[in-house]
């Protein structure tokens, strides 16, 4: 068999180039391809997790907005600082006279600050007091009428004295949130 030198060169070159192609493919390209697939799968997994999380965040946000909408009055009332003047102005109509003493801070109730206000008033009939108790639930603050309540007849009027507990957001605990 007579193979020319030219053909031997050609064959050697072909074998060398083919070897390079094979080594490059198996040593570099295929492992890289595998890594590509792993990274793609990881990204898909994370994206699925993100989708679930963002759905949950949307649900939570909807729930929060609904709660805020339904409890707007309560939320505002808790964040409003109690004002003796404003309270007197708003509830004076139920009494012949209404006096509120200085506010004293009580022990906190959980995350809420509690203030106590002593009240003395004069009413013409118990009905006025019932109306006051109804109105206090709709006032600008969270106010609970507390014991002891004292009613004392004075001619045609009734002198009443009672304490009120005012509940507010505790600014210290809210600031730390």
């Amino acid at each position, binding site marked *: 068999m007579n193979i020319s030198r030219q053909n031997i060169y*050609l064959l050697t070159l072909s074998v060398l180039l083919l070897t390079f*192609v094979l080594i490059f493919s198996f040593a570099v390209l295929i492992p890289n391809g595998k890594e590509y697939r792993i*990274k793609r799968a990881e990204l898909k997994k994370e994206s699925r997790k993100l989708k679930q999380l963002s759905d949950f965040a949307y649900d939570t946000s909807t729930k929060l907005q609904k709660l805020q909408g339904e409890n707007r009055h309560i939320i505002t009332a808790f964040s409003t600082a109690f004002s003796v003047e404003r309270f007197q102005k708003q509830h004076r109509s139920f009494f012949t006279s209404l006096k509120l003493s200085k506010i004293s801070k009580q022990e906190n109730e959980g995350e809420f600050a509690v203030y106590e206000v002593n009240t003395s008033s004069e009413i013409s009939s118990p009905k006025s007091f019932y109306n006051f108790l109804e109105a206090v639930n709709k006032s600008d603050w969270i106010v609970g*009428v507390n014991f002891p309540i004292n009613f004392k007849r004075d001619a045609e009027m009734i002198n009443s004295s009672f304490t009120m507990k005012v509940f507010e957001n505790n600014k210290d605990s809210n600031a730390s949130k």
Partner: protein
Amino acid sequence: MKYSYIKPRTKTALTKDIQLLFTFFSVTIGMLFLTYVFLLFKEYRFEENRAEVIQEEKDLRASIKIMKAKITFIEKQNILSERVFTQNSVLKDSIHNLFDLVPGRITLSQAKILEDGLILYGITPNKDVYNFMLQAPLRSIFHRTYSSFYPIENGWYRFVSTNYIDEESKNEY
């Protein structure tokens, strides 16, 4: 001086066969390199996107935590306000019932409503009216009832009625 009649042809290492071989392998190797570069680029992009997704997840988790804390706080506000409003309503009904309880023949001069009791001061025409018309219903409500009478000039009696609910059963009311 010329030794051949034909023109010498230029010899080159790049014969037609070699050229064909190089073209074939250049295209093959070129495609392989392009694939490699594509894979590297895509891997880099995946890594980058994954980092972004993880950061987004982290932000979302933080925002969910804040929202949950807000929800819990609103629920606490709701529970407390409901309790206060209910207490006010119960108090209103209790005072209403108390004044309804007092018969027309008895005149109250003072009423002290305590957390666990009730003290009434008033005037009754006689002890029987007080005992049957006021003390009887008070006994049915309170656990301990004490009454004192003081005669006054017109033959009527001034009375002090002290009524208590025992601590252990207070929660039932």
